[in-house]
Structure formats: structure tokens, C-alpha cells
């Protein structure tokens, strides 16, 4: 009886994890891709994120109090990406640098390719400090709201709002100055 209950709850947990995985695979992959700048490392990061999430899923479910788990998943990816750079002692690559390779695989990059305005935005995003770049990725690539971003970054809602505002202001400056240089 006890064993049946245990197997049942394990099966339920696995089913819930499968739902989470299917619902957020694209989010985790998008975040990873824009964070590391190439598909090979983005695949690794995505895989590691879900394996880690699987290990701690039961506790996360218990502690989430019914709140969405997407910020928790993205926080795992965020921490793994930080380790990734520390371990390999390297900086994120600009997505622009990979545009040639990427465009053959993904529609997103072919959309950007040939549009100087969008390329200049991506180049500007790559120049932002890590926390501002991440906040923009979460907002615009993943469509996360302030509260979700705050949970993923471990900040308050207010601090996140300020972070996003400053990121956009700084990006505006970068794009404007690059346009001035080109003119």
C-alpha cells in the first residue's frame, strides 16, 4: 500500500516534470542561446538545466506554493551559465558573431540577418553589463513580467523595474552612438 502510494506519487511527479519540461524547453533554450551566443553551448546549457531541475523538482514543487516554476528554471540556467563562464574562463559570444551559422538552422537569425537595425540592437545588447542583458533577454525573448524576472534574478520587484529601465536607457545610448559613428 505504502509502496503503491510511493510509486504513484513518483509517477505523478514525473508527469508534472514532463509538463514543465514541455512547456518551457523553448524558454530555457532561448535564454541559454542569447546568454552564450551559440547553439552548441546553448544545447549543453539547456540539457544541464533540465537535469539539475529534475534532481530538485520535488523540493521546488513543495516550496513553490503553487507559483509558476519558470523563474526557478531560468535561475538554474542563469547559475549554470555563470559557472560555465567561470569554468571555461570565457566571455559570452555576441549572437551577431554567429549569425552566419545560425541563419542556416533557425528562422530567428535569418529574420535579423540583413536588417541592420536589428543587428545593431543585438550588438548593443551584447555590450550591456550581465545583469542588464539578462533582464532584457528575460523580458523580450521569454516575455517574463517584472515579478518573474525578479524571482529569477533573486531581486525585489522594484529593483527589477529599475534594472530594466536602466538597461533600456543604456541600450538606447549605445545604439544612438553607434549610429552617430556610422553617419
Amino acid at each position, binding site marked *: 500500500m505504502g509502496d503503491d502510494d510511493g510509486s504513484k506519487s513518483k509517477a505523478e511527479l514525473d508527469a508534472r516534470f514532463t509538463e514543465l519540461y514541455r512547456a518551457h*524547453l523553448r524558454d530555457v533554450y532561448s535564454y541559454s542561446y542569447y546568454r552564450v551566443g551559440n547553439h552548441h553551448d546553448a544545447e549543453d546549457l539547456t540539457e544541464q538545466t533540465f537535469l539539475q531541475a529534475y534532481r530538485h523538482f520535488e523540493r521546488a514543487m513543495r516550496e513553490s506554493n503553487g507559483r509558476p516554476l519558470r523563474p526557478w528554471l531560468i535561475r538554474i540556467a542563469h547559475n549554470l551559465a555563470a559557472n560555465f563562464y567561470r569554468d571555461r574562463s570565457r566571455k559570452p559570444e555576441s549572437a551577431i558573431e554567429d549569425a552566419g551559422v545560425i541563419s542556416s538552422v*533557425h528562422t530567428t537569425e535569418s529574420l535579423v540577418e540583413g536588417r541592420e537595425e536589428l543587428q545593431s540592437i543585438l550588438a548593443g545588447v551584447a555590450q550591456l553589463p550581465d545583469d542588464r542583458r539578462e533582464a532584457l533577454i528575460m523580458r523580450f525573448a521569454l516575455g517574463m513580467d517584472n515579478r518573474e524576472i525578479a524571482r529569477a534574478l533573486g531581486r525585489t520587484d522594484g529593483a527589477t523595474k529599475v534594472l530594466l529601465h536602466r538597461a533600456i536607457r543604456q*541600450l538606447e545610448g549605445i545604439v544612438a552612438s553607434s549610429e552617430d559613428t556610422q553617419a
Partner: protein
Amino acid sequence: MTSGAAHLEALLREALSPVEPPADLAQRLELTLVNLTELAQDELESWELSAMRDPRNWARPVAAAVIGTTAGTALVLLRVRARHRSRKAESSSLRQLAEHTLHDIAEETRRILPDR
């Protein structure tokens, strides 16, 4: 919001479009997760079978676990934990380590709680 900022946000939305993961990544990940689930279950089942082979090896630890909060049990656990470290180095597999640990619990229980 200024129209410049609104324009920039629209461009950001377009430039940072979600990226579809490659199909083989999804398949590979699902396979890995299924394997992990099955492995965890197999490991548990084989550990249980092997540990339960000889009832003398687990009857006393079960008794010790039942009285869990007594000082004697705490001492058993402390001593077993100390031995567990050296066992870890000696054991070639998790299963072997589990068997050794179970055996140690039985030994220590017999020594410290002879009436159990």
C-alpha cells in the same frame, strides 16, 4: 514612455525573438530523462532485493530505526557514520556500500543495544 523607447522596445522584441530548440535536442533530453527515471527505479529495486536477502541483516536496523530518537540509536548512527567514510573508499559500487552500511548498522545496534 517616449516614442523612441517604444520603438526600441519593439525592435528588441523582434531582435530577441524566442529561439526554437533543435528537434534532436528535445528527443535526446526526453530520452535522458526517461533513462534517469528508470535507472533510479532499478537502483532502488536491486538495492532493496540485495539488502533483504538475509533477514538477520535488516531486522535489527529496522528495530533501531523504530526507536529512532533514543540516545542509543543516535550513538549507533554516529558510529556507523564514522565507519561509512572508510567503507566508501573500500566499496566499488553504491550497492556494495549500501550493503556494508547496513551490515555496520546491524553490528553497532547489536553492540550498543543488545536487547533489541
